[in-house]
């Protein structure tokens, strides 16, 4: 089953850059192959490599006309769309450095990154980004121009800092007429060791840090990954996760440009799931929350289905789980199970895969956070080859992954070629590879802490098991010490609980405390539906979360999970939070990782309530709305014991 070594891309040298590879591929495929597609006005519109190249050229030269020089920084913000990728590629072609911001970043975050990075240009999508930029321009003296491409709602804007992408491209074409060789010259000037991306990591603790990544870092990462899982130019990939996440860069840029597969951009973020189904990608990489949502969707549909459909599903899943477990434990699958599984596949699994947009999937990965074993087993049961990836921004994406046929759901697999992974005596995971970054921008102290003798210190605790697989326990500072002194990973509990469709987020507490407790955020849609079916009336998330029936529902789900846990690790008390965790309130990072130190401080009343004999806690906090407004919430929360 292994396809190792079958990928033969361009060898990565110190001279090769992403733009050079881009230019080669463009010439190779020109108007014979579709480079990307975007769904626009209800239709998939193809963009050939020729168009891709010419658009990038026009934007790059347009940026030069605005005064962009080698080493200058360009910040980008907005949804995934071809123009975004063109702007990024154009920046690299000029020899500039690209910076990506999450499209939902609040003003302060945008200002911090643009100011700290000294970005000269900002490329935004439409009105929302333009508004953000106009609000911060006075505080970011280095910022020269803001580019935009969607005119909707911008009719009344006349600030001279604004310029449309169309105007930029016209400027670029003029410059090309005057100096036809300029674009290629700029590309040829690049060297592999030049910085191409300044990547601000979300950081679960402090201010964002800007990791400097070179062309060589990005390209070696892609090439080493494809030694394990080669991708082909006939493959389709759907780009819908934020470009500000290294995982998306690694697929769309590092691998995309080397393998030459077709990138597909959804119509709107809301239509992504539907558009994925229309395309049926061959390769997919997403954080666990995407897969968790898929499982939740299926579980909810199951609850709604007719009796016969439910029975068919139950039977097919039973067969699927059995076969998946045999494969996990590398035991042979007997012929009659193969037959049963074939039937289950035809009757149920195949249709589930189709609905999830996974009907043609060959390689699918999860990474960026921990995924629970139950979710993992689910995907293998329906015949989706889901693999775990481990990596970080500082190593240009990934360093460790599962190999086909050698998947253990409690590990993240083995290092990719060219990568060494070791565990320090303290238990920290460290790695070395050509893709390790060169340092943090303007942060020498952090750089020396993360980079020692060429080794990248991850801040994660883990170990290597007897099969040579890496096991990531948790962030070192998050590992809990239970009452009896054993170490325990809170994320393990959390991911297990998230398998319940009713639970969206969990925060497990228990470090050096008498027992483990949890703060639960219910899934509004699913629990709301359940409440309606029980004739419970509610008006808001806060109200729903505090209803006694909902508490009982959550209690049962926790008790179910407690069943297979060692007694000390069982959740004893819990609280239903009156709101969901939200990056706008700093409770999650933009990649939706829980910022424990922050929530511990913010919800210290709840924590003390969970470890007291009272059955209520009083809360008094503020919440931030998407437009930056702040509201104060005063409420009483119930503390419930999970008996049994």
């Amino acid at each position, binding site marked *: 089953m292994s396809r190792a070594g079958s990928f033969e891309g361009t060898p990565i040298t110190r001279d090769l850059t992403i733009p050079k590879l881009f230019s080669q591929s463009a010439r190779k495929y020109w108007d014979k192959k579709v480079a990307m597609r975007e769904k626009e006005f*209800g*239709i998939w519109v193809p963009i050939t490599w020729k168009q891709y190249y010419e658009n990038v050229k026009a934007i790059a030269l347009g940026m030069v006309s605005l005064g962009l020089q080698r080493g200058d920084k360009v910040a980008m913000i907005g949804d995934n769309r071809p123009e975004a990728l063109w702007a990024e590629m154009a920046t690299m072609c000029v020899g500039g450095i690209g910076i990506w911001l999450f499209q939902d970043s609040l003003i302060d975050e945008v200002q911090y990154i643009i100011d700290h990075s000294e970005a000269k240009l900002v490329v935004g999508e439409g009105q929302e980004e333009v508004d953000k930029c106009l609000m911060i321009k006075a505080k970011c003296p280095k910022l020269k121009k803001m580019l935009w491409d969607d005119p909707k*709602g911008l009719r009344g804007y006349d600030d001279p800092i604004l310029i449309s992408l169309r105007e930029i491209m016209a400027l670029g074409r003029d410059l090309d007429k005057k100096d036809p060789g300029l674009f290629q010259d700029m590309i040829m000037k690049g060297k592999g060791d030049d910085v191409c991306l300044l990547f601000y990591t979300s950081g679960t603790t402090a201010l964002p840090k800007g990791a400097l990544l070179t062309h060589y870092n990005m390209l070696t990462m892609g090439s080493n990954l494809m030694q394990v899982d080669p991708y082909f130019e006939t493959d389709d990939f759907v780009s819908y996760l934020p470009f500000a996440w290294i995982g998306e860069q690694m697929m769309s840029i590092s691998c995309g440009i080397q393998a030459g597969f077709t990138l597909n951009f959804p119509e709107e973020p809301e*239509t992504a799931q539907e558009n994925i189904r229309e395309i049926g990608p061959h390769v997919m990489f997403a954080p666990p929350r995407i897969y968790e949502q898929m499982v939740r969707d299926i579980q909810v549909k199951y609850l709604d289905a007719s009796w016969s459909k439910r029975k068919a599903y139950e039977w097919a899943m039973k067969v699927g789980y059995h076969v998946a477990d045999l494969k996990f434990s590398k035991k042979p699958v007997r012929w009659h199970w193969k037959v049963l599984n074939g039937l289950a596949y035809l009757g149920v699994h195949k249709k589930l895969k189709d609905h999830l947009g996974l009907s043609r999937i060959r390689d699918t990965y999860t990474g960026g956070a921990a995924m629970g074993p139950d979710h993992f087993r689910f995907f293998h049961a329906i015949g989706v080859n889901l693999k775990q990836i481990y990596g970080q921004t500082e190593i240009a994406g990934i360093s460790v992954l599962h190999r086909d046929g050698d998947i253990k759901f409690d590990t993240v697999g083995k290092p990719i070629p060219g990568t060494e992974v070791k565990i320090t005596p303290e238990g920290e995971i460290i790695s070395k590879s050509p893709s390790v970054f060169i340092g943090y921008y303007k942060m020498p102290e952090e750089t020396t802490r993360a980079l020692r003798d060429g080794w990248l210190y991850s801040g994660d605790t883990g170990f290597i098991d007897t099969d040579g697989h890496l096991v990531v326990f948790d962030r070192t500072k998050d590992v809990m010490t239970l009452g009896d002194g054993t170490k325990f990973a809170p994320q393990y509990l959390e991911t297990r609980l998230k398998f319940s469709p009713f639970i969206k987020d969990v925060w497990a507490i228990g470090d050096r405390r008498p027992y483990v407790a949890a703060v639960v955020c219910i899934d509004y849609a699913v629990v709301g539906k359940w409440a309606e079916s029980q004739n419970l009336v509610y008006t808001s998330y806060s109200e729903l979360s505090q209803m006694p029936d909902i508490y009982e529902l959550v209690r049962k789900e926790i008790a179910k999970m407690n069943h297979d846990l060692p007694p000390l690790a069982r959740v004893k008390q819990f609280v239903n939070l009156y709101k969901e965790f939200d990056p706008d309130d700093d409770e999650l990072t933009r990649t939706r990782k829980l910022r424990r130190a922050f929530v511990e401080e913010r919800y210290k009343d709840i924590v003390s309530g969970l470890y007291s004999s009272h059955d209520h806690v009083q809360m008094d906090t503020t919440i931030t709305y998407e437009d930056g407004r702040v509201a104060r919430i005063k409420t009483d929360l119930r503390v419930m014991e999970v008996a049994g």
Partner: protein
Amino acid sequence: MAVTKEVQLKVDDIYMAFGGVQALMGVSLEVRKGEIFSIIGPNGAGKTVLLNCINGLYRPQRGHIHFEGREIDKRRPYQRARMGISRTFQKIELFKGTTVLDNIRLGRHIHLKSGLISGSVYLGKTAREEAEHRDFIEREIINLLEIEHIRDKIVGMLPYGLQKRVELARALALNPKIILLDEPLAGLNLEEVEDMARFILDINEEEKWQTTCVLVEHDMGVVMDISHRVMALNFGEKIAEGTPPEVQGNPEVIKAYLGEAEDLYVTRR
């Protein structure tokens, strides 16, 4: 769009009675091309009756209505629609069992030229015509109202706020010169109200639309924020007309809203 001096819609002294109930008593108004003209008033003041008279659902017993200089008193609703008068309803009047796209397409029906026979053969011109109309719907309506994600959904399954948006989409499919909006904000939550107010401004101001809007609405915050001129009705009579500040300060209007005076000043922020 800049408001012009040109009067697009003129209602002249109309009377409308239902049995013994006088719904409109000598109401006159002039809507200028390119403006957002709002009609306010307490419940039962005759606002919806007035809209029904303008688009032809009711025939007033007295008075005249002129649209773009032509008298339209005798014209039936579909004829007025063909002239470019479109509307939405206070209570949603969509075809709940069909998709969003089909509902919008229906609003476009008036512009289809192909007949029954060429439609059943569906070649050449007919197919091209359909593609053109679909293109218009996608580019100018679905994109504007941000309903890409529901275009193939069944209308009856959608939440109320989105149904309101579909209702507006269908009214726009007519490519109207003037659009009558009957309480487009009723029953919406804060976020949906903000979206809808933005859409109304877009329809009024975007270069491709520049449509005159006649708005019947209770949400004073939005009415006072986006209207060029406001008219107040009470018991079928006009009690005030002017710019938002003028109407807000009018003692008669305050009296009509008796006890709700402060409502006139409350915006949603």
